[in-house]
């Protein structure tokens, strides 16, 4: 009796879900699209991505549901903390996919965490959109069919900044990098870019512990080596400490310029833009790039209380791109979405002339080399960058001939 009733309930439930699916013409697992934002909610990268990334994904979901009546109420966003640790990231990724039925993983700051989550998702055939993680391994030796790399990567940073700085006369470098996947990769890319443009390294790069607060040893070493550029591949709080101490030791006055591998708006805010003034960096976007960007940023600021970083804007764009692929595929099945994404060309407020390369799943887009303005030149709060150059989508990322990816 009991069993019969249970069967009846299940049958009815199944019937309902089938009709629901038929009504909208899309096949959705558990009748919903679940976006899992796996990010740093508490640590060094939480301000530049973290809760802001979760909010951005939620905004993308809301906008998508408003624009596509068939998906009304069907997109959910979950934010989970991976603490920038590779092991935590793989556990959380597995848990989100198995228990919470997440259909896509999003964001993933910290390269080591991005790599381990990507590995887990591959086994479970779930797409991953890495936005805030930087290592080029994601689209090279560690690439897989389900992982897409959005917004930026270390090749693009190094290629943009390394060549811009070297071409402007900064042709001798001393580089330090945080000793984990991201830093090691960025050091390799930056060194290659400097050499390619006729520059040289005055000594081998030094690995620093991650995270680290005291960089005085390396700054003193730079003082005695006298390179033209002190290159720092640190990110987030570590970068803030490096730059603070770079100014404290008066390196700029001694004729040693600053080369920054990865720069977020929040780093500049944390230290004051005068500390960074004149430094060059490469970014995929910034909030007052143009009117479209300003409009979106105003919306974000209203919802979140702060201006978006390019990482957070990237999460909105990546989430939208994913959801549109689900709509095109009429399914949230991993393989179907991957197929819909591959070779897709699009342009939105964040990603211009964007193209999802089918060969390695690198999402290429126009990127910008920018220079930090002194505070006196800022026209409004948060006006920190002057655009120096636009690097077109096709030239900004690793050329396909050099890509080592094999699916």
């Amino acid at each position, binding site marked *: 009796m009991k069993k019969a009733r249970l069967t009846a309930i299940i049958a009815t439930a199944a019937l309902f879900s089938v009709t629901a699916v038929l009504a909208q013409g899309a096949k959705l697992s558990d009748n919903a699209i679940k976006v899992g934002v796996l990010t740093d909610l*508490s640590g060094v990268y939480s301000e530049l991505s973290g809760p802001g990334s979760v909010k951005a994904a939620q905004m993308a979901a809301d906008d998508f549901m408003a624009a596509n009546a068939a998906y009304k109420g069907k997109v959910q966003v979950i934010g989970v903390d991976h603490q920038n640790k590779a092991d935590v990231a793989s556990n959380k990724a597995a848990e989100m996919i198995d228990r919470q039925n997440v259909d896509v993983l999003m964001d993933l700051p910290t390269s080591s965490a991005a790599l381990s989550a990507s590995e887990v998702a591959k086994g479970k055939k779930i797409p991953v959109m890495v936005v805030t993680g930087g290592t080029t391994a994601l689209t090279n030796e560690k690439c897989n069919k389900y992982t897409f790399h959005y917004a930026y990567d270390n090749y693009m940073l190094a290629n943009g900044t390394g060549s811009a700085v070297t071409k402007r006369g900064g042709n001798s470098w001393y580089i330090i990098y945080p000793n984990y996947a991201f830093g090691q990769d960025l050091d390799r890319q930056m060194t290659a870019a400097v050499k390619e443009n006729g520059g040289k390294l005055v000594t081998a790069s030094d*690995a620093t512990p991650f995270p680290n607060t005291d960089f005085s040893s390396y700054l003193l070493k730079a003082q005695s080596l006298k390179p033209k550029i002190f290159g720092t591949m640190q990110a987030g709080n570590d970068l803030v400490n490096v730059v603070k101490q770079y100014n*404290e030791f008066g390196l700029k006055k001694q004729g040693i310029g600053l080369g920054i591998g990865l720069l977020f708006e929040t780093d500049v805010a944390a230290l004051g833009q005068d500390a960074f003034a004149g430094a060059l960096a490469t970014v995929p976007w910034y909030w007052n790039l143009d009117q479209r960007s300003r409009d979106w940023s105003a919306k974000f600021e209203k919802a979140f209380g702060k201006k978006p970083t390019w990482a957070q804007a990237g999460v909105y764009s990546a989430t939208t791109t994913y959801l549109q692929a689900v709509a095109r595929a009429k399914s949230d099945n991993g393989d179907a979405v991957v197929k819909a994404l591959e070779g897709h060309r699009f342009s939105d407020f964040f990603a211009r002339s964007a193209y999802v390369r089918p060969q390695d799943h690198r999402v290429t887009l126009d990127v910008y080399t920018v220079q930090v303005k002194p505070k006196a030149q800022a026209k409004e709060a948060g006006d920190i960058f002057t655009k120096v150059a636009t690097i077109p989508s096709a030239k900004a990322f690793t050329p396909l001939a050099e890509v080592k990816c094999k699916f």
Partner: protein
Amino acid sequence: MNTQLLLIQVFNGLVNGAFYALLSLGLAVIFGMLRIVNFMHGALYMLGAFTAFALGQAFGLGFWPALILAPLIVGALGMLLERTLLSRLYGLEPSYNLLLTFGLTLLTQDLVKQVMLSQFAVSSAPYTTPDVLTGVVNLGFVVFPKYRLFVIALTLVICLVTWFVVEKTRVGAIIRASTENPGVTRAFGIDVSKWVTGVFGVGVGLAGLAGVLAAPIYSVEPYMGAELIITTFAVVVIGGLGSILGSIVTGFAVGVLAAVGAAVYPPIANTLVFILMAVVLLVRPSGLFGLPEGTR
């Protein structure tokens, strides 16, 4: 690796050494007198830096007033914690106060993070060096920030004063008597529990002072004490648990050693202190300056 660079590193190491010394001094005072393993010391160091930052944001107070006020505020908070929480654990196993102070650490860090994000909208805050100490001095062999020289000098003075008070004065004698034999000391009409609270306040105030000194060098952020405290504990163990002189000397020595290590072979910089700790413990289980248990 040239000799000049090595010399520079020896000198540079004194700065980090100053922070290790100041923190382990506080720990040594608290452990030596009260037998409390204060795991919260790193969080209180961070609180010192954060208080200096918050005083500046809220009241426009600069570095100098903060240098006096922040340690007092942190010290007072320490005394409050000792009275309300820690004093209830005396006589219990040390693991109880370790768990309590560890829990308080997590609580403090997250609380500060929440306050920073909601009040100041930053997760790491800038703190500028006072004008008179801005800039660099050419010492002949190296160009060094004035402010760091000031940190070394001030720390040396504080360390010597603390050592002198504890080892050579009547106040020090009372404190030591209060912890050696509270019953007899009480019989002399001395309010032992007040002294205990006071000592804890001073020890914690030293951590707060280290925090204010650190604010212009490192960015002020909720977890700035977490990393440092591990090294500081190693320093305390190497120097000998509770030894005032041991913590001062070892603090500076470890700073110098780590800096030289970082110059010779960077990856070893953070591990060096633990290798040293292992070696010292093998040879002298009670630490370099510590007396074997039972003889004190």
